[in-house]
């Protein structure tokens, strides 16, 4: 049967028509075999454009359709849906991309028109061999995994359980809460960070639908949207959180002291410790690397003093496999390392701090119980310098991007400083002040007017120690003069970067990262919480620098996407899966070995495809020497037809 194929060539306003002679493409294709309808139209994706598709199918009794327009990632679904409305099977409609892959990248009209014609003709030849397909229904596991339990992960998990879903919340650290738990107050309202976060943390621990796994990491994943299988590795749980009654008898006897990462290294902690008073799970935990006593002959002191017998050195790491329907990745950020800021004395002078360390100094739960004092000599700093864009907006040396939150948190830091040290003076070096957000600009203005913070527009070239002071050499570009400040303390507003381990989790989950290493969204504007992999969503600073309100919004958005996905009775699995042409199969098993999904097995001496497991990658077709296995609608015959069309 010869196909009755229809072609539409889209102008996309001037986007395509400026460099491609769309009329010529449509007219030339009208002469091709099997093409019974070929027209151009100004905006195919508009309502009249889609109606034209439906009408063309009905009026011309079409059984194949090619829309020559923008990338299929944008409108393949649009036109397949329109085809269905015209009673043409969705898989009989194909997109020829003549915008991104042609009109936008060439400027010679003749050349671009010729290429557009080839691209469209290749799609026509392909569609003439397409077969009608119906999506394969697969069951859905109504359970979500949230990776990373900072404020993003916590919010997503709580929203998911509100919709009745079961959640596994995985966190690498010993407590949930992430970076927000380290903060003192939050801009622009100055409400206490722990006060607004800890109720949510407690809700997580009391929620029977959340299975919380701290000190755990995702090890591997298999399966597909709606039906993932995830292996989660949990470190050995030496302290049983059910038994631990937080008496704190264990820490005084522990002989080991290591820098406390929860205090950003400002204090030391014992090998056995509780990260914060607000920690969830509310339990002490034993740092395996620091502890001497895993061999009880060496130490074992904490076990001896623990009345309730909560400590057991013989515990082993566990790996569990969980069935999961969808995943939210919210692995957060780290601050760009101080060691990169040699010119500011970062990592060298104890009184040069990063933003998170200053948060710990201001926090009532921090080492100084909220008194701002110099780590070196515990004196109250009377002059303090804040340096913004430290590591940000510097493509030559550091991160090219703006870290977005530093303008605001530096204004907050300066304000908090003045609240703690009313007779002190705060200086802020800045490039620009970016204070877009509700109440943000007013907050910055208040810090200048009410708290007398001196803003100096310019960069700092050097910070060095002299006579017990930190000499800050900078420039005030507005006054056109050099500035030297003898400061007692310097705080660097370090850039945000993806948390350590982001690269690994991206690799494990097969989700992309952008040029700066943050997790990549599927579309920068229209799919800001979806990853490129179906069923995996993104939330929080792992996707890009953002503040708490934005993080919470994105987390709720990701959760609502998961809820919508998992509310379906069945999910549609793409029917473009592999199919064996039995008479040609010799049972050589090359395809069985090549398949990354174990979707092919030998049945009665012939390869047989499990359509639910098959993802349609075509690895099998690429290795079959007899061309006996094909991916439906991208068959080897179709590819050869496309090559012929291009080379004609």
């Amino acid at each position, binding site marked *: 049967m010869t196909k009755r194929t229809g072609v539409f060539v889209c102008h996309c306003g001037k986007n395509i028509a400026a460099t491609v002679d769309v009329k010529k493409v449509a007219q030339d294709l009208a002469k091709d075999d099997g093409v019974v309808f070929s027209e151009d139209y100004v905006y195919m994706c508009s309502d009249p454009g889609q109606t034209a598709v439906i009408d063309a199918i009905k009026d011309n009794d079409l059984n194949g359709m090619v829309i020559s327009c923008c*990338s*299929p*990632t944008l409108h393949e679904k649009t036109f397949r849906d329109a085809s269905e409305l015209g009673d043409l099977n969705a898989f009989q409609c194909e997109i020829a*991309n003549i*915008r*991104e*892959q*042609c*009109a*936008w*990248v*060439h*400027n*010679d009209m003749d*050349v*671009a028109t*010729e*290429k557009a014609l*080839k*691209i469209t003709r*290749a799609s026509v030849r392909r569609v003439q061999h397409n077969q009608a397909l119906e999506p394969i229904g697969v069951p859905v596991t109504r359970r979500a995994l949230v990776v990373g339990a900072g404020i993003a992960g916590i919010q997503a998990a709580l929203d998911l359980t509100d919709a009745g879903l079961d959640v596994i919340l995985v966190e690498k650290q010993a407590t949930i809460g992430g970076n927000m738990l380290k903060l003192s107050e939050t801009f622009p309202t100055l409400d206490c960070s722990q006060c607004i976060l800890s109720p949510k943390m407690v809700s997580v621990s009391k929620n029977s639908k959340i299975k919380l796994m701290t000190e755990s990491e995702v090890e591997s994943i298999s399966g597909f949207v709606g039906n993932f299988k995830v292996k989660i590795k949990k470190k050995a749980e030496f302290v049983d959180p059910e038994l631990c009654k937080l008496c704190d008898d264990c820490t005084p006897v522990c002989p080991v002291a290591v820098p406390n990462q929860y205090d950003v290294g400002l204090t030391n902690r014992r090998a056995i410790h509780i990260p914060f008073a607000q920690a969830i799970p509310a339990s002490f935990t034993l740092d395996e690397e620091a502890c001497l006593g895993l061999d009880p002959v060496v130490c074992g002191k904490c076990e001896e003093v623990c009345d309730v017998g909560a400590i057991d050195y013989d515990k082993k790491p566990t790996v569990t496999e969980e069935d999961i329907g969808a995943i939210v990745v919210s692995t957060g950020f780290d601050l760009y390392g101080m060691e990169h800021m040699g010119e500011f004395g970062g990592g060298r002078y104890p009184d040069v701090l990063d933003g998170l360390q200053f948060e710990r100094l201001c926090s009532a739960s921090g080492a100084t119980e909220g008194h701002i004092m110099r780590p070196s000599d515990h004196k109250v700093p009377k002059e303090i310098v804040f340096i913004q864009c430290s590591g940000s907006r510097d493509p030559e040396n550091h991160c090219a991007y703006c870290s977005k939150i530093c303008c605001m948190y530096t204004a907050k830091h300066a304000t908090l400083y003045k609240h703690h040290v009313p007779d002190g003076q705060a200086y802020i070096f800045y490039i620009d002040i970016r204070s877009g957000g509700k109440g943000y600009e007013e907050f910055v203005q208040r810090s200048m007017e009410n708290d007398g913070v001196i803003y100096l527009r310019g960069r700092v070239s050097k910070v060095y120690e002299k006579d017990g002071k930190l000499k800050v050499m900078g420039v005030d570009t507005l006054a056109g003069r050099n500035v030297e400040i003898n400061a007692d303390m310097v705080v660097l507003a370090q850039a945000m970067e993806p948390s350590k381990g982001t690269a690994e989790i991206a*690799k494990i989950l*097969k989700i*992309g*990262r*952008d*040029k700066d290493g943050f997790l*990549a969204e599927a579309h920068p504007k229209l799919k800001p919480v979806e990853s*490129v*992999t179906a069923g995996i969503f993104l939330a929080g600073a792992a996707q890009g620098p953002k503040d708490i309100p934005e993080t919470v919004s994105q987390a709720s958005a990701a959760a609502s996407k998961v809820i919508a996905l998992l509310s379906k009775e069945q999910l549609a699995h793409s029917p*473009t899966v592999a199919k064996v042409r039995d008479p040609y199969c010799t049972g050589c098993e090359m395809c069985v070995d*090549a398949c*990354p*999904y174990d979707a092919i097995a030998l049945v009665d001496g012939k390869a047989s495809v499990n359509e639910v497991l098959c*993802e*349609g*990658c*075509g*690895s099998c*077709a*690429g*290795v*079959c020497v007899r*061309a006996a296995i094909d*991916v439906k609608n*991208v068959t*080897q015959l179709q*590819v*050869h037809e*496309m*090559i*012929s069309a*291009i*080379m004609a």
Partner: protein
Amino acid sequence: MSNPSKTTEVQSFEPRIVAFLCKWCSSAGSDLAGVSRIQYSANATPITIPCSGSVSPMYILSAFNKGADGVLISGCHPGDCHYMEGNYLARRKLYLVKELLQFIGLESERFRMSWVSAAEGAKFAEVVDEFVEDLRVLGPQNRLKAKP
């Protein structure tokens, strides 16, 4: 060698390239080149395939047989394959294809593989432009082209 007509031929010769792009990385990368309006040679016509691993050696031979001067296969970076390991499969297999082409007397430079991620629009444009320049030097491909 300094035949003037030959020089003219090199300048006017427009190589024809068939470019197999994997759907997830390289096709998306070429989309990004478009969105970024990066201009590059129009000599390569793309065919989007699910994965570089799905490329049968027959596709490459078929393209040369039909008159292609060069064949490009572009996939995700090693380790980043959307289908876990398809590009490793492609790399192993296509290395052998290169050997085969050489064995049958075709310049192996006419067949090229590249790794272009969805974030590398500029790289995609560079890959195409470089390939076109190299093929201009090699001239038209007649070794495997079907006789009319």
